[in-house]
């Protein structure tokens, strides 16, 4: 894996904050950020359903691998120098369900969380 493309929801403040946070971290693998549902995203990845990329964060590998939701987050953390070990730990079969539940919970409540953090 040489690069990752991250599709994030540009209308969501929490997603934008996450994008800037990811952008500022030291990386093993470079990341490119594209707004989900935008014309650029449609042109680059015509095979992806824009509605699904707006609902869940989506990461695309340089070989066309698509990761969604918790897997997308685990891939992003895996690409970061400081978080790779944690990403591997939380990807273990017996643990990945907790990562999935946590990401799903944050994703579901992101409007509330945004208001609380604002």
């Amino acid at each position: 894996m040489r690069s990752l493309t991250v599709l994030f929801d540009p209308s969501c403040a929490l997603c934008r904050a996450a994008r800037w946070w990811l952008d500022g971290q030291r990386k093993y693998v470079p990341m490119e950020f594209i707004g989900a549902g935008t014309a650029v995203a449609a042109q680059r990845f015509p095979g992806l359903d824009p509605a699904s990329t707006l609902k869940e964060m989506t990461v695309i590998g340089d070989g066309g691998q698509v990761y969604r939701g918790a897997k997308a987050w685990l891939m992003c953390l895996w690409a970061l120098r400081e978080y790779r070990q944690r990403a591997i730990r939380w990807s273990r079969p017996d643990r990945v369900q907790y990562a999935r539940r946590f990401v799903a919970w944050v994703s579901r409540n992101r409007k509330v969380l945004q208001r609380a953090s604002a």
Partner: protein
Amino acid sequence: MNVNYTVVTYLIYLAVSIGLTIWVARTLHRNGRIFLVDVFHGNEPLADAVNHLLVVGFYLVNLGYVTMALKLGYDVADSRGSIEALSHKVGIVLLVLGLMHLLNVFVFNRMRRNAILDNAPPPVEPDACLMPPALPRT
């Protein structure tokens, strides 16, 4: 018999401390090599070079400490005083050696962990795969 207990204590202290330092350094040198060869993906000359540099640092720090901690500050009058002074001095040298040794093991382990992480494959399987025509130009 006119024996200067202080000087004898110093000499025994130096012999024991230097002996211990050499023993620990050799242990480190022998066993650390295996870690380093793994870290450097079988590049043995590089592993040997780093190993040697680490051991030289280990010797310098420990022998430096042993030398600086030599002075007792009082005269030893008899063999009992000599043994007491020695046990105190050598005990501290052992603790310093132990700390330095554990620090070295920690450094080796850290290097090995980082080397493993550098080459770790993606931790999760993709949900789907886009057909090559959908890929962006690289």
